[in-house]
């Protein structure tokens, strides 16, 4: 739903206030978790010493890590409940091209995107509201935070968990928590930060997650399939994002 701003260029709302807020909290939480966690995992590295010096020792780093974990996971919980609000109050669809659920079209888009990379295709595929990469990024985080939370709980309360499970599950939790952390932190830089903000066509920053708005020009280049449905006169669309 285009909302007219004072400037002649129409602006579209891409992210609601709640999602912008959650993104900000998760941005701080995830960065803090990565910094404190990786500093405790690789404590002999100079950058880890710097983090420890700033935080005033491993006791504080551990406490901050747990606090940020609770805050970040709270965002996941809020987001989860928002789905019900979206479905029951806003009457939005859970499936369809505008949703975050993976579709057959995403695999076609991905194949076409790779053909575009290698030059056997002249234009990028027409992405809808969320490209296959944005969907992967979303689900990687949403599911990843749950598995990180689970292994993290094992490490937080090893005595309680070892009442039910064998003690060496704590060993396995250590392994999985560390490897997933390395993967998550790397993907967050390579997949999220660089492709969302540093690609030549969006550099230096795609501000839509902070302002909530997207210009028509951006819609045409980044989300052409969505732009077509919005531009069509009799098409109705749900303006709230997911």
């Amino acid at each position, binding site marked *: 739903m285009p909302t007219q701003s004072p400037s002649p260029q129409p602006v579209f709302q891409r992210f609601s206030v709640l999602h912008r807020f959650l993104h900000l909290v998760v941005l701080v939480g995830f960065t803090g978790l990565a910094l404190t966690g*990786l500093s*405790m*995992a*690789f*404590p*002999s*590295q100079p*950058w880890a010493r710097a983090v*420890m010096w700033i935080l005033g*020792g*491993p*006791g504080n780093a551990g406490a901050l890590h747990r606090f940020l974990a609770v805050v970040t996971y709270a965002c996941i919980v809020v987001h989860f409940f928002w789905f019900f609000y979206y479905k029951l109050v806003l009457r939005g669809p859970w499936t369809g091209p505008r949703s975050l659920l993976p579709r057959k079209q995403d695999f076609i888009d991905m194949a076409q*995107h*790779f053909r*575009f*990379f*290698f*030059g056997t295709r002249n234009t990028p595929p027409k992405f809808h509201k969320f490209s296959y*990469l944005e969907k992967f990024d979303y689900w990687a985080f949403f599911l990843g935070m749950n598995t990180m939370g689970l292994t993290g709980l094992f490490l937080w309360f*090893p*005595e*309680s968990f*070892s*009442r039910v*499970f*064998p*003690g*060496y599950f*704590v*060993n*396995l939790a*250590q*392994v*999985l928590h560390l*490897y*997933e952390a*390395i*993967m998550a932190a*790397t*993907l967050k*830089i*390579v*997949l999220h*930060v*660089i*492709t969302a903000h*540093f*690609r*030549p*066509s969006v*550099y*230096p920053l795609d501000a839509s997650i902070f302002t909530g708005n997207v210009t028509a020009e951006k819609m045409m280049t980044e989300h052409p399939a969505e732009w077509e449905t919005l531009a069509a006169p009799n098409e109705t669309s749900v303006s709230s994002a997911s």
Partner: protein
Amino acid sequence: MEHRSSPAAPFVFVRFHRALGSILTASAVLACLLAAPPAAWALSDPASSWFVDMNRYSRSAHASLTCEQCHGGMGGDESPHPDERDPEFLKVRATRRFDYAKCGTCHADAYRRYLQGVHAKALKEEKSPENPEASEKGLAPSCGECHSAHYAAAGQSRLETGLRMTEVCGACHPAQKQSYLDGKHGRLAIHLKSDSSAYCSDCHGAHITVSLKEREQALTACSHCHPRAQENFTSFVIHASMEGIAEKGEDKHRTVVLIHRIKSIAAVIVFLVIVFFFGHTFLWILRELHEKLRKQ
């Protein structure tokens, strides 16, 4: 506004180089993460030797003692001076010749506990008359192997003792030292200098040195810091390295192999995922740059 498009080409290059810089930074970060942490603290003193630096001795915890108080008179039969014409002169470690029961005169509790532990048992087996070779050159430790009677400083903090202990115990148990340093206890205690974590003797005992293979013993050790721990808790593997795995019990052997296998699988998955998305991002940037330059 009319100059908008003219300086675009170098500008795009600057942008691209910044993006490339980000990728390189990310790669460097990853390389740092995967690098093994170096062990970089110095071992201050080896075990006692035949010679004593009296300057250092005079600053040590034992400085108030005279030589005779530990070594007896050199003249009598009690403790004869080594014969310098003997071909084995000075070749046997000094710590093998000294009777460390003497330490028990002042450190009675420590010596009594030492006698109950596995180190003392191993030493007793080595020092049997049937096997003179092991008796003279064996590796089982007595007091002097771990403690420097001549140079040990007094009033060491828990952290200082712990740092040194890791080196001293690690000299004979290198695999255990490494797995301890890789584990949470070692990372906290040694790398992060947090003395609320556990050092070797906090679990294995200072002088009694138990191996903790018995579950009940292990639970007692864990319970010092984890009072809510129950028997299951003890199957957590502290020294979870493949090195020296042959000496481990059957259960622990199986667990360590499982941990190692899951670690390998996780490493492969993480590697493949990262390589795929590095490639994806890199190709995307290249292609967009190509498009931008073509439009100039």
